[in-house]
């Protein structure tokens, strides 16, 4: 099973795209926070990126088969950590999501996302047929459902939702019968009212606000409205870095994190947004290409798991910024400020690199 993996076989294009996106992110974090009490945040983000690169390098060195070998153990660790965070975790902004580690607070759910990608890749590659049976689907559902439920308890609806496309993309690639797909969709729709019942009041408010934003423009709909104003007022060429009034005067909510694309859209205009989204498209297509060239199905599932999670992040965050989706607190990968989230993306890209540099081995 051994392979001669070499760093020079890294996907340099993927890395270049990643750096470009991170560069735009740093630029906008700086613009959004300079002159405020958050000034200097882009330096901290830079540190996280460097740390992420190191992690990526480390992860890419360990043969992904060896990692996948440990999937059951990782799964236990992940579930255990989620239970631990509920028991002793650090509450911020009304949700228990953080545990102190190495002098910083880490969002356990970010780590769990990574683990579930690995677990799903292991599970799906062990299915020896071209079509998933109902039993396989149920197993996949239960495997994902347990951590998903625990994350919901934190509560963190956004991160929990990220696990869903992971299963969907996996099932699609693993082969799913139409009737199974239809049944799952029907079941999902039927579960919606039940799920609604379990939502916290603020989550319900976000959803109703999303559906009828004009009802309360200064209340819960405020964030989306301000974000849209920032984006719309940017025009085609933008107001210039540091000149966006929505951004600089603080009308854009969490402008350095979840709504960083709104800040960028205001200051760099449609041109900047176009460049950013094309970069994300290139990133995702590059991931798919790596999956296509993977040495085996395990590698493919691993890469596509990463693609599913990152793609979902991008889709949901960008759609939220222009008011196409409710506010869920999902950051924009590689651009939004945040230590755990940045580390997660680089670790995930480490897995991709891992698969990439072992593509010729047989």
């Amino acid at each position: 099973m051994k392979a001669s993996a070499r760093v020079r076989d890294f996907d340099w294009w993927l890395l270049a795209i990643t750096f470009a996106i991170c560069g735009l992110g740093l630029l906008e974090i700086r613009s959004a926070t300079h002159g405020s009490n958050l000034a200097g945040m882009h330096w901290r983000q830079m540190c996280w990126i460097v740390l992420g690169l190191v992690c990526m390098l480390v992860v890419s060195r360990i043969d992904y088969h060896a990692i996948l070998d440990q999937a059951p153990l990782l799964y236990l660790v992940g579930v255990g950590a989620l239970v631990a965070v509920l028991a002793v975790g650090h509450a911020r902004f009304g949700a228990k999501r953080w545990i102190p580690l190495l002098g910083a607070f880490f969002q356990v759910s970010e780590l769990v996302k990574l683990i579930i990608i690995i677990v799903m890749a292991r599970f799906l590659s062990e299915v020896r047929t071209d079509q998933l049976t109902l039993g396989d689907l149920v197993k996949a559902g239960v495997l994902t459902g347990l951590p998903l439920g625990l994350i919901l308890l934190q509560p963190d609806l956004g991160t929990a939702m990220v696990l869903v496309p992971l299963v969907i993309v996996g099932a699609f690639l693993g082969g799913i019968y139409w009737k199974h797909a239809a049944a799952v969709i029907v079941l999902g729709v039927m579960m919606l009212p039940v799920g609604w019942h379990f939502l916290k009041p603020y989550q319900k408010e976000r959803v109703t606000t999303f559906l009828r934003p004009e009802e309360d423009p200064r209340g819960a709909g405020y964030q989306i409205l301000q974000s849209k104003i920032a984006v719309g007022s940017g025009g085609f060429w933008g107001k210039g870095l540091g000149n966006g009034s929505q951004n600089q005067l603080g009308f854009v909510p969490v402008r350095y994190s979840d709504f960083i694309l709104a800040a960028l859209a205001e200051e760099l205009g449609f041109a900047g947004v176009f460049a950013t989204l094309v970069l994300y498209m290139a990133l995702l297509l590059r991931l798919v290409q790596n999956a296509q060239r993977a040495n085996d199905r395990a590698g493919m599932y691993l890469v596509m798991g990463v693609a599913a999670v990152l793609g979902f992040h991008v889709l949901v965050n960008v759609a939220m910024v222009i008011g196409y989706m409710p506010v869920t607190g999902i950051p924009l990968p590689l651009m939004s400020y945040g230590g755990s989230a940045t580390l997660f993306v680089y670790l995930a890209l480490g897995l991709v690199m891992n698969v990439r540099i072992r593509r010729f081995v047989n």
Partner: protein
Amino acid sequence: MSYWFEDEHRLPQTRLAIVSYVIVGAIGLLLLGFWKLQVVDSERYTQLAERNRIRAIPIIAPRGRMLDREGRPLVDNYPSFSVLLLRDDPKQVERSLPQIAEGLGVPLDDLQQQLEAAQDLPKFQPIVIKPEATQADIAFIESHRADIPLLEMLMVYRRRYLPDGFMAHASGYVGEVSAQQVESSNGRYRPGDLVGKTGLERQYNDVLSGTDGLRRVIVNSVGREVGRLEQKEAILGQQIQLTIDYDLQVVAEQALAGRKGAVVALDPRTGEVLALASRPAPDPNLFAVRVPREEWKRLNEDPDRPLLDRAIQAQLAPGSVFKVIMATAMLESKAIPENFSVLCTGTTDFYGRMFHCWQKHGHGVVSLHQAVVHSCDVFFYNVGKRLGIDRIAYYASQLGLGRKTGIDLPSEEAGLMPSEEWKQRVFHQKWYPGETISVAIGQGAVVATPLQLAHTIGGIALGGIFKQPHLLMSSQSVPGERFPLSEDTTEKVTQAMFGVVNEGGTAAGVHLEGIELCGKTGSAQVISAEGLKRAGRQRRFSDNAWFVGYAPRRNPEIVVSVLVEGGEHGASVAAPIARDIIKAYYDKKAKRNQLQYTVEYKHYEFGDEPLLAESQPTSEPPARPEQSKPH
């Protein structure tokens, strides 16, 4: 050895390709969304962003002051801060409310009520939670800017009136503009604007109120000002100069202290109102901020009716003061010979009913002069009977009764001069001749205001020239009415009123050495004598005391009308008040003439000096004699 990952299956290339297309499609859709916002609808959002960023803050223009005829301020302004509560974030409001209540010393219930009351207003519109911030409040707001970013201060000018209800009815007060006024003002008023509600504040509101300025500032998302775009200064309201003489007003106010009544002092030659007082009076300073509900209720339900401006609104039987009108009517109409005389035995009867003279034992044989001097009822019963109600009504109306004088105040009452026609119109009844007998001594249906009596008596003393009373000092000629009385009538009537004070008449007690003080007393019943007997002699039914006096005898300079409700006797209660005012007038005049005394304008700065500072500069060089110059 077989590993779990060793399988022969090929990768699902088609499905991976489909995922690629989905990615391209999704990114394309998102770009379309951005295109719509940033290119198609860009202009609209640019406007919204500007509206976010720019806030227009009104700069409140102070109202014009009111000065007395010598330039002394009667109504002034002082700067004050209102505490505003920003309600953009209801959750934070809810959380911080208890702390705010404690910090500002406002009951929590009050704040919650105010919030509820403002529920229908747009959320971004702040509400005033404390109209007058103290130093401690300002310190509280400044020190909690970070943790309670909900409080703001707005500088406003508030009205300051002289204390203790001084001239309260005439000056009136300001209050927040009503919803209807806002609607009908074509954008001139905004909700929350202050406008004159009563008195001169209302009459001259357009002159007094300035034009608010505007400051356009850049604000951040929590409303903190971070930059300034432009500023349009407020245009100050114009000050108005009144005809009121502060010194005479002081005498009037103090004479009425603790009483129910009114004083009107006019210069009948010009119609200038020198003093206008009504008591009891509310303190308009209490209204300058916000009328507390309980206070408003108390004022409205007070049986003494402090909100009534008795000087222009109390419509009461003039009593014996009416005899001056009767005497004038008798002489002018020539329906009765000048030397007409009557034997007064204390009682007489008309139409089968007994009528009494106030002098139980009678006045003996009295002529017109004696009848006025001693206020003989029986004489005027006879005059009334001979003249008839319609002739009385004609002359009384011509002399100003039953009609508004046209003073520049809102809500003046017209009084009533009854006539046959009036009774038919209002009650659909015939006039009974017996009613004429009551009217002849100023009882029955005839009622008049203190202002009307001053206006009428002053006009008669001038020979039939009735200048329109006014409070605003004006260089333009004052409109007036003329009902020329013959020289003989004027002479006889004024001579009689001179006799009242100076020939041992009913007001002999107020005789002033060296001053030709004339006048007529009145003690008007509030209810009929029979009614009084039934009710017992309670204070509520005590007679109203009247005195209308003027000086000098011919071509008078000042006429003073005094009403003291429940004062019983015009001679002993009302007349001394009129005498004091007229004496004060002459004292000032004497000082001015003898010492070449002139009053310097004293310029007060807003809020710096006490308003009632001594107004008697002594050593300044004389500037202009007599009339003060309006600004």
